[in-house]
Structures are given as C-alpha cells and as structure tokens.
C-alpha cells in the first residue's frame, strides 16, 4: 500500500485528515458526554447516591418510565398498522399519508407541546369535553403522554415502511395461497421478517420518549415530585444551582443514550447500513 492509487489521497494527507476528524469528533461529541459524568461525581460517589435517592428524583424516574411505558406501545401498534397498509398495499394518497406521519419530525418540540395546550386549555376545542369527563389533561400524566406520543409518532412506521417495501410481499402471498388467515400470516411470516427493523424503530422511539424535553416542558406545569420527568428534573436542579443533582440525573439519561447507541449499532449490523435512521 505504499503506492497511491489515483482514487486515493496520499497516505500523509489521509492520516492528517483522519486525525483532524477524530480530534473534532472527540472534542465535540465525546467531551459533552464526559463532562456529564465528571460533574456528577465532582463531590464523590456518596453525593451521587444521595442525589439519586431524593424523593423528587425517584418520582421523576418513575414518571419517565410510566410515560414511556404508555407512549411507546401505543406508537408501536399504530406504527405497525401504518407500515402494513403503506408498505403492503397501493392506494391513492399513500404519499400524502406518509408525509402526515413524518410531519411531527419537522415541528419544534415546543410547538409539539403547545398544540395540546391549545386543544385542552382555556377556550380549547376539547377543553370542555375533558372537563365534563372530569379528566385533568394539562399539567398531568395524560398531557405528558399526548405530547410524547406526538413527538415519537413517526419512528416505528418510518423504519418499517422502507424495510417492508424492500422485502416485498411474495412470502405473505404464498402463505395466503396455502390457506393461512390474517393474524397467522402476520405472526408467522411478517413478524419474523421485520423483527429487527421493528426493534430498531421501538428503540429509537423509546430513546426519544424518555429524553424528550421541549414538548413535555410546555404541558407539564412543573409540579415537583408530580409532573416532572427526568429531563425536566435536570432543568429544575440546574436552575437551582444543584449541579451534582442535575448532572446525576443527566448521567442516568446519558447511560440510556449510550445503551441506545450500542443496541442501535448491533441492530444496524443485522438490518444493513442502508436501513439506518436518525433518532
């Protein structure tokens, strides 16, 4: 490899470019991650444990898990339904439907929360309906779930649709010809074929659901110990100058991000780099 091929740069240039990129990437992408853990442990291990056992911190962790546990399955089922009709059938308006499904990605997180405040707040279209049903939507769990569902809605459908179109429906049609009925086709033919892609979509959906900040900030009402998810708790503690507390919760969320990236890399190896999507 001492000789340079015409489609390659000189070895010295190549080494310099690689070095420059790695320095930029570590400086820009790794340092923020590192600083989270360094700040969390600035006053030792004990302080981290104390911060973690605060009732408000525990309540925030619990609420984050509850919101994700409701939103992710909802969006998984609806994402599967969308992928089944868009990925397996031709019908007029398919492209439009796909655009509508991806719409939440181009809306600011703050606006994703705002729309629910407009809908359920004073003079909102559904405000009186919710009042009559005696359901508190805003500044409570339902509002947090709705905002999260809006933000994470596209993930599952967006990963599955290209995958299912690429695979084609020959296997499912064969199963139908052999006499298999609806759900059996889905469980025994479709699901095994798309399982890694489905897992990939659910993984990204969950990461965003647990980490969402702007949308839930708008609908939460910021009642400590009650309507604060982990990212909101990070903000509150940071604004109180409780850096150890803020960076401890931030550290937990960073661990979630690291695990997500690791699982994502494994799944990408399973489904091929071209199936890759952004979080």
């Amino acid at each position, binding site marked *: 490899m001492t000789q340079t091929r015409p489609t390659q740069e000189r070895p010295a240039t190549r080494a310099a470019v690689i070095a420059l990129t790695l320095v930029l990437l570590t400086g820009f992408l790794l340092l923020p991650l590192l600083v989270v853990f360094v700040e969390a442990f600035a006053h030792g291990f004990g302080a981290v444990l104390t911060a973690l056992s605060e009732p408000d911190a525990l309540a925030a962790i619990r609420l984050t898990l509850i919101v994700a546990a409701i939103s992710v399955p909802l969006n998984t089922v609806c994402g599967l339904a969308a992928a089944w*009709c868009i990925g397996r059938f031709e019908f007029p308006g398919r492209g439009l439907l796909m655009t509508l499904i991806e719409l939440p990605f181009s809306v*600011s*997180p703050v606006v994703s929360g705002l729309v629910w405040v407009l809908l359920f707040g004073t003079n909102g279209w559904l405000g009186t309906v919710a009042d009559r049903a005696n359901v508190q939507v805003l500044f409570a769990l339902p509002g947090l779930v709705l905002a999260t569902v809006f933000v994470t809605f596209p993930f599952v459908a967006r990963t599955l649709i290209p995958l299912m179109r690429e695979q084609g429906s020959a296997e499912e049609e064969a199963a139908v010809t052999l006499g298999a009925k609806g759900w059996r086709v889905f469980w025994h033919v479709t699901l095994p074929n798309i399982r890694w892609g489905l897992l990939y979509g659910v993984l990204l959906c969950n990461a965003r659901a647990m980490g969402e900040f702007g949308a839930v900030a708008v609908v939460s009402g910021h009642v400590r110990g009650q309507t604060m998810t982990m990212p909101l708790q990070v903000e509150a503690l940071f604004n109180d100058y409780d850096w150890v507390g803020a960076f401890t919760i931030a550290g937990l969320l960073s661990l979630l991000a690291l695990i997500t990236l690791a699982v994502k890399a494994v799944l990408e190896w399973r489904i091929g780099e071209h199936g890759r999507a952004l979080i």
Partner: protein
Amino acid sequence: MARFQRSALPGFTPALGITLTWVSLIVLLPLASLALRPWSLGLEGVWHAISEPRVAAALRLSFGAALLAAAVNVPLGLLTAWVMVRYRFPGRDLADSLIDMPLALPTAVAGIALTALFAPNGWIGALLTPLGIKVAYTPLGVLIALIFVGLPFMVRTLEPVLMDLPLESEEAAATLGATRGQTLRRVVLPALAPALLAGFGAALARGVGEYGSVIFIAGNMPMRSEIAPLLIVIRLEQLDYAGAAALALVMLLVSFGLLLLLNIMQARMRRRP
C-alpha cells in the same frame, strides 16, 4: 374497496382505519387547532403579535443561527462522512456510532453539558476566555449548540450517497490527467451537491425549532440571545395562548417555505446531467 385493494393480503381496511384515526387525532387535530387559534386576535392582533421588536429579534436569531450552523455543518459533515466512508482505520466503527450522540443524548442533557464545557470556567471556555471569546450566554452559544445537534443530519445524509458514488468516474478523471484535488472539486463535489443540500435542509429544520440544547447555553437575554421557541414558552406562561400560537405558526410557515425551496433546488440539481 376493490379499486384500492388489488392484493391477496388481508387486513388493509382495519390497518388503514387505525392509521387514519391515529393520524387525525394525534397530528391533524392538534395542528389544525394551532393554525386556527391566532385568528381569534383578528388580523391586526396577529400582525401585532408577530411584529414586536422582541419577536423580530428572536425570529432573526433562531433562523440566522440555524442557517449559519447548517452552513458550518457542510464542511464539517463532508469531512466526517468522507473519512467514515472512504478510509479504514482502527476505531472507525466506534467513531461512526458516536456521530449519533447529539441525537441520542436528550436535549436537556446536551444543553447543560455544553454550558458546563463553554462556561467561562469550563474545560473549553477557560481556553477561549484569554482570547477574548465568550461563548456561553451569548448568541455564539446558540450557534455552538445548533452545530452540535445538526451535525448528525449532515453526516447521515451524505454517507449513503458517498457509499454509492461510482469510483469509475474518479478513475476516469485521474486517467485524463486531473489531480486528486481537481477530481474532488470537479467530479465528487457536484455529485454530492443534492445530498449536501438535503443535509443542510434537515439540519436547518432541526435548528430553527431546537429548544432544550440551546436555552441553557444561550443566557436568554431579550433582544440578544433569546430564541423564538423560548418566546413561545414565555407567552404561554403569560397565558397569551393566541400570541404563542401566532408565533408558532409563523415559525412553521417560514420553515416549511425554506424546506420547499431547498426541495425544489434539489430536484433541479438532480435533473441537470
């Protein structure tokens, strides 16, 4: 349904039913209420709500910083994507999965981490202070945060296109006597132009609405380092729902307009031989 369903597969109607219901309830209904709400102020009220100097300054900062950040990410993303696709070196896989870090990291976490790094006594801030550069609590901080969250969009848009780029055209250019630099400038870069534009658009769209990673490092001084999404939150806190909706609607319309423009430019570029 015969016209719709020319397939032997079952389950079209229930699947479409679930999807349409969900899209209507979760996406269309909320966005429709956003689109109609500002008009309760009347035309003059809407104009007043979006033309105040403080609003104009916030919109200018949000769009200006997002445009600039997306522009900075063009060379940065090009360099990163090139290195990841064309070169093999130890640690490449690790570095490649690191590129998604800004998106995997919750925005609030990214926000406080960048603030800690760039604060005057932070790891990077301490190096910049003697040079007279202030990042945290200035518009420059907004720019840094937007470059951070935008980078993955640029890299991930470029990578697949670079992977599929045929080496033959580069070989041909070299055979015809072009230097490597000329080949990159005249052959590779034009082929990447549509992808660069697409990445620019994705980074821009994200940057305009970005909230969590920006508000901690920005300092949020009205007229100076206050972004438009924060102003929406402030109006909501003042219970000025229609005013918040007016500002949100303007942001959405300008973003969609910019994205449409970029899409048209991309389509034109692809059509040219």
